């Protein structure tokens, strides 16, 4: 126990400062925000993540949002297990033909207003996997997308920027 406390105390807080959220920063990161939600979820955002066919790179970086450096929860954003509790759907990967139905049903289960964030080049437009007998391409081929976050995979700061933009914190449509 002593060692645990000592380790915790000897590691000072490492959390990064929140990213700048002006239109310029979003544009620089290539994030497209098509539709902005207003008052509804200003205070907090519950996200349900769905991998619709990714190579797991995007998942690794989304997972990194929970580490002490990024500490997503300080912004009132948390990942929830059920789509019924979620305000937003964070989708990665090209939509594989086998995942299309599961994605659609997850989206159907969400209460409105619901937000869809496509994370990663694959989710934005199919990326390297494109469209084929096995892949339907980008997420917007299956459900309407509000925010696009490019990158392969998008680094955590860019994901953070995209998610915060989706919350409509500082940016007005």
């Amino acid at each position: 126990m002593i060692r645990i406390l000592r380790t915790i105390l000897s590691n000072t807080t490492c959390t990064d400062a929140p990213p700048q959220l002006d239109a310029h920063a979003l544009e620089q990161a290539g994030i497209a925000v098509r539709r902005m939600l207003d008052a509804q979820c200003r205070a907090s955002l519950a996200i349900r993540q769905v991998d619709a066919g990714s190579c797991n790179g995007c998942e690794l970086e989304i997972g990194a949002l929970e580490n002490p450096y990024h500490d997503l929860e300080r912004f009132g954003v948390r990942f929830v297990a059920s789509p019924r509790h979620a305000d937003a759907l964070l989708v990665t990967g090209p939509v594989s033909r086998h995942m299309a139905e599961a994605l659609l049903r997850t989206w159907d289960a969400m209460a409105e207003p619901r937000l869809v964030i496509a994370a990663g080049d694959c989710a934005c437009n199919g990326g390297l996997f494109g469209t084929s007998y096995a892949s339907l391409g980008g997420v917007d081929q299956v459900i309407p997308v509000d925010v696009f976050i490019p990158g392969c995979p998008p680094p955590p700061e860019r994901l953070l920027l995209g998610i915060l933009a989706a919350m409509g914190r500082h940016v007005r449509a």
Partner: protein
Amino acid sequence: MNNSPAWLQELSAWGTSSRMLQDRILLVTVAPEHWAQLAPEASVRQLRFAGLWADVRDEKLEVNACLARDGWYVLLRATPLDGTMGLPSWARWYPAADRMQRHAHDLWGVRFGECNPPWTRHGAWKADEAPLRTPVTPQERGRDRYPFATFSGEGVYEIPVGPVHAGIIEPGHFRFSVAGEDILGLEERLGYVHKGIEWLACGRKPAALLPLASRVSADSTVAHSWAAALALECALGIAPTARGVVLRGFLAERERIANHLGDVGAICGDVGFAFAKMQCSRLREEWLRCQHGIFGHRLLMDCIAPGGVAVDLDAGHIRLLRANHRDMLQRWQNIAPILTDYPPLQDRLLNTGRLSTVAARGLGVSGYLARASGLSLDVRHDRPQPPYDRHPVQPCLQQRGDVAARLQVRMAEISASVRLLDALLDDLPPGPIQEPWPPGMAAEGVGVVEGFRGEIVTHVRLDDQGNVARFFPRDPSWFAWPALEVLVGGNIVADFPVCNKSVNASYSGCDL
């Protein structure tokens, strides 16, 4: 062939022809009528089943099966008799062959034995269509009735989970049969992230294959792209540059550490030990940031190129890296002992999710899964190709085969790999990082690499123009998934997440 082991000579005696494909990899062409007999013959000689995939060459369907022992590999190749389109199944001798055969059936239309329930197809194209041979008419995936095994008895109930899981992980379906709290059986149904990687590879130029190989499973991006590059190089008989080879090893060890750090933290987090989860995820983040600063990509994607690597280090980088290694080792040595002798943690992990040595051998697992169950398997040791020939690796072994043992193997590998990183930097030769790529020709090669998860075997065949005609990356997850089904038996449902995390098989790596 003279100093090849006896079993290899006995096995090649079954062939109609055999030739050394490359160093310690033998290709044996066999008649289809001998296919059934070869599985028991290989099994009594204690050969490990290391993969099976189909191919079409000169309009002829062929099946390749890969067997391995002591760092030697043999590729058995047979063409099903005209009209039958099928070969006998090996699943009775090598249970892990089952899913690979069904995958080959769904994509290539080759049948194995009588019963070929779909695996990768999911009803998204017709049963008699084969997307890798002829274009298919995709159809609605359909609610096909998948024949799950059922358990019956008083109070036995089922818990279906997925494909969309509760956490930030890949999709797949699990069907638990449970009595009270105890798991009687688990059946996996995978294939949900099948996105046509094998199909996309066909016709690519060698250099364009690597971005695809990098994305077979992003956590093993270095290992998969290295295996693909190695297969290409072996096919054309070129050697990557000396500097390129050391840098490849360097990148692969960094990837190993990044993944082990993440998983060690996640395993502890799954049993509620938040301290370890936070400390490890912090270390991992610092590790990835260093990679971003030096190699330009946090996960090291696209750093490997045919003939070498695409990134180089200068003196400034090397100084930074050494400081980074020193820092990591010091912090890690502070945290690691807390995990190994913290009784509440060990209490949850000891005896949880046990995989016996016999089961591990029977299922053909590799990597930490094998090493934690007492099987000394490590490509870096068994088949020391550069740069591991100059930097011998001792497999980190444990005997118990439980979650605690897997955790211990991975923890030991973190320290060992950090030291190896320094040794590789000491040994970094000057010179170019890439060999010029020769003009293409018809050829084939195999790349074997120890990724963080275990052995990756990648087969690449080039056509006359030197474009990719066949690419099959065999991820270790093909064997880890069946092992997960076995090792959760008898555990309580609440321990499934930690068992699963300790195995950490990739969905994308085998759904392809």
